[in-house]
Every structure is written in structure tokens, then in C-alpha cells.
């Protein structure tokens, strides 16, 4: 039995090493960098200790940071709501076991399995004012937008970024909702239908309340994914035009790897991590409740 007691530590040792080296160490190191003034383009080793100066600079004296917070919040709010509403609508449309729907569901997984980087650059191509397929369709539906470079307009670029994200995530949450719909007890739905309730009423009054726990988790998960959105920002808009789509993660990326201001970037990244930690805490409490 003594051997067993050691065995368990041997079994987790490699995983622990990986996590310690690739996650715990970076977290501690980033915290350490964040209290230093360190531009890696100017000096290869850690710069002078400055205490909380980077953090006070973030709050007191960096309009770009506050701007990126606003951008991130707008992006998150719209992408969460639109993704989940659309995903629920598609789930209701595509739930069921007939071969056609199963096949369509399989097809719809592909936008989700597509890499965000490719998704961003593809949308950039599709939105090209001269030969983009999306632009052609948009120009047809809204003639005044014909030939307009959509990604050069701050508002339209933001809409494009949100739309691409909704397109990417909707299939995933659709699958999640289809799973949840299948798990609903059929009797209550049927009883309501027998009572003559319309489809909309059945959905709002019978199904939706039972789906609340799943919806809560979906909102949290999508919010977490949205808050750290980065890959398709890099490839679709690169934060532009100007800084119109400069999300917080992209702001950190620019600060660290374009301006090489690692100390300041680490401080901003820590603020993002703090928001995520709160959400992750709520999320794990949910998971714990369901899997004690």
C-alpha cells in the first residue's frame, strides 16, 4: 500500500511538471514582470523595479486601455447574445434524428472546426470591396454599400468582427443546445401541446425555464471565449481601422510584441486574467454543483 501512495504522485508528476513549466511559471513570471519597467527591445534582462507604476499607469493615464476595454465589452455583449439566440434557433430547427438533419449538423461543425486565424483571413477576403463574395451579396441587398471598403469603417469593421465570431461559435452552442433539448422530459411538452398551447408558448413557458442551467453555462463559456478573442482580430482587422476593433487581448499582444513593453503588457494581461478568474470561479461553482 505504501508503494501505491507513492505511485499516485509518480503518475501525476509528468503532468504536474508540464503545467508548472508552461502555466504556473508564466503566471508567476508575468506578475513579476508587471512590477518592472522592461522594454525587451532595449535590454535583454529584466529592467528596474517600479512597484505598481504599471498598474497606476493603466488606470490613471492610458486612454488606449480604456478604449480597448470598451471595444472588448461591446464585442463580448453582442457576440454572446447573438451567438446564443441564433444557436437556440438553429437547435430548435435541427433537433431530431432524421438522416438529413444529422447530416446538416455534421456540415455545420466545419465552421467551428475551422481555425480562427483562417476564419479571420477568409472573412477579410470575402469582405474585399472589389472581389469579395460577401461584399457582392451585401452590395446587392444594400445598394448604398456597394463597393464600400467595409473593413475601413469603424462601425462596420466591428460588425464584421462580431459576425465572424457568431458564425464561428453558433454551431458549437447549437450542438450543446440540441443535447439539452433531447434531455428534456417529453411529457410536459406533449401535455402542453395537448392543452392547445402554440409552439412559441410551449418554448417560452415549458422549455426555456428547464433550459436555464444550460443557458447560464453557455453565457459564461461564451463570455469567457469572447473576452479573450484574439486570433481572428489579428487576421481580420488587426485591431483597425485605427483602434476601432482593438480588443484587450490584442492590445496586450501589440504592447508586448510590437512595442516590446513587456512590463506594461504583463500588467494589462493580469487585469484581463483577473476578470477571467472571476468568471472561471462562477463557472467552476456551477460545475461543482452538478458534479459534486
Amino acid at each position: 500500500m505504501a508503494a501505491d501512495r507513492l505511485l499516485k504522485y509518480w503518475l501525476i508528476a509528468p503532468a504536474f511538471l508540464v503545467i508548472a513549466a508552461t502555466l504556473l511559471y508564466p503566471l508567476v513570471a508575468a506578475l513579476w514582470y508587471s512590477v518592472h519597467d522592461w522594454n525587451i527591445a532595449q535590454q535583454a534582462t529584466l529592467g528596474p523595479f517600479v512597484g505598481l507604476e504599471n498598474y497606476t499607469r493603466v488606470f490613471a493615464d492610458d486612454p488606449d486601455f480604456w478604449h480597448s476595454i470598451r471595444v472588448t465589452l461591446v464585442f463580448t455583449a453582442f457576440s454572446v447574445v447573438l451567438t446564443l439566440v441564433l444557436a437556440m434557433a438553429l437547435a430548435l430547427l435541427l433537433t431530431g434524428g432524421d438522416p438529413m438533419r444529422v447530416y446538416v449538423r455534421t456540415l455545420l461543425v466545419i465552421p467551428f472546426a475551422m481555425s480562427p486565424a483562417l476564419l479571420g483571413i477568409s472573412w477579410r477576403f470575402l469582405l474585399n470591396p472589389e472581389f469579395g463574395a460577401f461584399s457582392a451579396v451585401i452590395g446587392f441587398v444594400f445598394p448604398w454599400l456597394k463597393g464600400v471598403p467595409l473593413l475601413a469603417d469603424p462601425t462596420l469593421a466591428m460588425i464584421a468582427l462580431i459576425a465572424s465570431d457568431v458564425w464561428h461559435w453558433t454551431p458549437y452552442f447549437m450542438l450543446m443546445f440540441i443535447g439539452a433539448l433531447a434531455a428534456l422530459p417529453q411529457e410536459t411538452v406533449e401535455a402542453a401541446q395537448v392543452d392547445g398551447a402554440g409552439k412559441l408558448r410551449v418554448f417560452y413557458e415549458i422549455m426555456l425555464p428547464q433550459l436555464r442551467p444550460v443557458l447560464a453555462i453557455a453565457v459564461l463559456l461564451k463570455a469567457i471565449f469572447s473576452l479573450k478573442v484574439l486570433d481572428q482580430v489579428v487576421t481580420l482587422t488587426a485591431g483597425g481601422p485605427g483602434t476601432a476593433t482593438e480588443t484587450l487581448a490584442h492590445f496586450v499582444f501589440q504592447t508586448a510584441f510590437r512595442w516590446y513593453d513587456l512590463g506594461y503588457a504583463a500588467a494589462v494581461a493580469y487585469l484581463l486574467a483577473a476578470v477571467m478568474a472571476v468568471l472561471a470561479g462562477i463557472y467552476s461553482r456551477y460545475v461543482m454543483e452538478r458534479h459534486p
Partner: protein
Amino acid sequence: MSESTRRMIGKWARGIAIALVVLVFFGPILWIMATAFKEPRDVYALKVFFTPTLQNIYASFDTPFFVGERTWNSIVVTMGTLVLSLPIATAAAYAFSRFRFPGGSVWSLGVLATQFIPPVIVIIPLFVAFRHANLLDTKLALVIANMSFVVPYAIWMIKGFIDSIPLDMEEAAQIDGASRLRAIWDVVVPMALPGIATAAIFCFVVSWNEFFYALVLSRQDATTLQVGLMSARTERGDAWEIMAAMGLIIILPMLVLSRFVQKYFAKGLISGSVR
């Protein structure tokens, strides 16, 4: 309106809605894939019907795009991540499933919580460390960086499967004289294989699609397909037909796997949250 006409309209409306959904979600991907086979002038003329050509695919393998090398880098990094992560994760998953650790479930929940750490915070010290170790622009650096998110996730997923394997079978093997490790290898691993396969598909998809770490950590030699996409934006303008050719290679494994991805990947991402 009679009941039957109403039902007819409903059926048609549903059919049209489903067709529209397929068009919106799959159309753009088809368009990109078709673009890979178009001559440049057909790309810029927005042609729907065209004579297919392999010229872009050939061009993409040439200077300055090097799709051959980048595909190879992507394959090596993805497979390296899989080969290293799965055994490590399986061992840890078994330990978390079968043994009690001081602190209880804090540890396995902590493993899950790592998924919420934003990549931008992790990459800063990793970049510094790899620079120090002269590992920038190597495939090894990318594999290590990928393991940071693959290993915790694979642990969490595989643990769920091992939890559902009854203890008696491995106990029986141990009574027959096999050591615990032997019992794990002979009894538990084969039974957990569906879970390990699920984790493998998840790891494959996320490693293959990984962009940001590769963008920061590679320059030229270790550049993967995902980062290579950026090279389609040349000084002479964007070479969209080349981008489409790269995109095709990126999507192909997903098309092959889509059936499994639907079955396992979506379930995997939410395992533990919804059941």
C-alpha cells in the same frame, strides 16, 4: 386555411430555413475551397463557374510561400503535441480518478481552471524563456507551448472516462498477480481507449488550429500553416488564391474528421459542464 395546407407551408418553411442555414454556414467554406482551384483572374472576377486548375496549389508550395515546409511543421508540431500529451494526461487522469489527494477535488478543478488563463499572459514569459534558451523559431518550442493547454484539457476529458470504468476489473487483474501499473496498462487503458481517442481528436483540432503561440514564437524555420496564412498578404497585394490554397490544406483534415468532431469534440469542450 386547412390543417393540411398549413402543415405543407410549415414543412416548406422549415426546408427553406435549413437550406439557408447550410448556405450561410457552409457556403463561405465551399467558396474558399473553390477559390483554391480558380485561376487568379477568375478569383478577381467573382466567377461561380470556372475551369479548375492546380496552379495555385503548385504556386503555394513554391517561394515565398513554402506550403510544403509549413505543412510539415504543422504535422510535426501537432503530432509531437499528441504523442507527448496523451500518455502524460492518461497517467494523471488515472491518478485523479482512483486516488485521493490531500485537498480533495481542488486539484482536478484546478486543472480545469487553467483553461481560463488568457493565452496573452502565458506567452510573455514563455517568449522570454524560449529566447533565453535559444528555442525561438523551433518546433520544440511550439510543442511545449501547445502542451500548456492540451495537457490539462486531456486530463479532464480522460478522467471522465476512467471514472466510469468499474474498479473490480483491475482489482481482479491485481489479485491474479499483476502489478498495479501492469493492471493499468492491460485493463484500464484498453477500456479508456474511447476517451483517449476523444481527447486525441480534441488535441489534434486545437493543436492544428493553434495560431497565436506559433505567431509569436516562430519566424521562418518553424512557421506553421496557420501563421503561413499571413504570408499570403504580400507587398504586391493580397494573394487570395494562395491564401485559399493554404486554407484548403488547413480545412482538409477537419472535413475528414467532421463526423468525429461533431460526436466528440463538441462533447469534449463541455464535458463536465453539461450532461
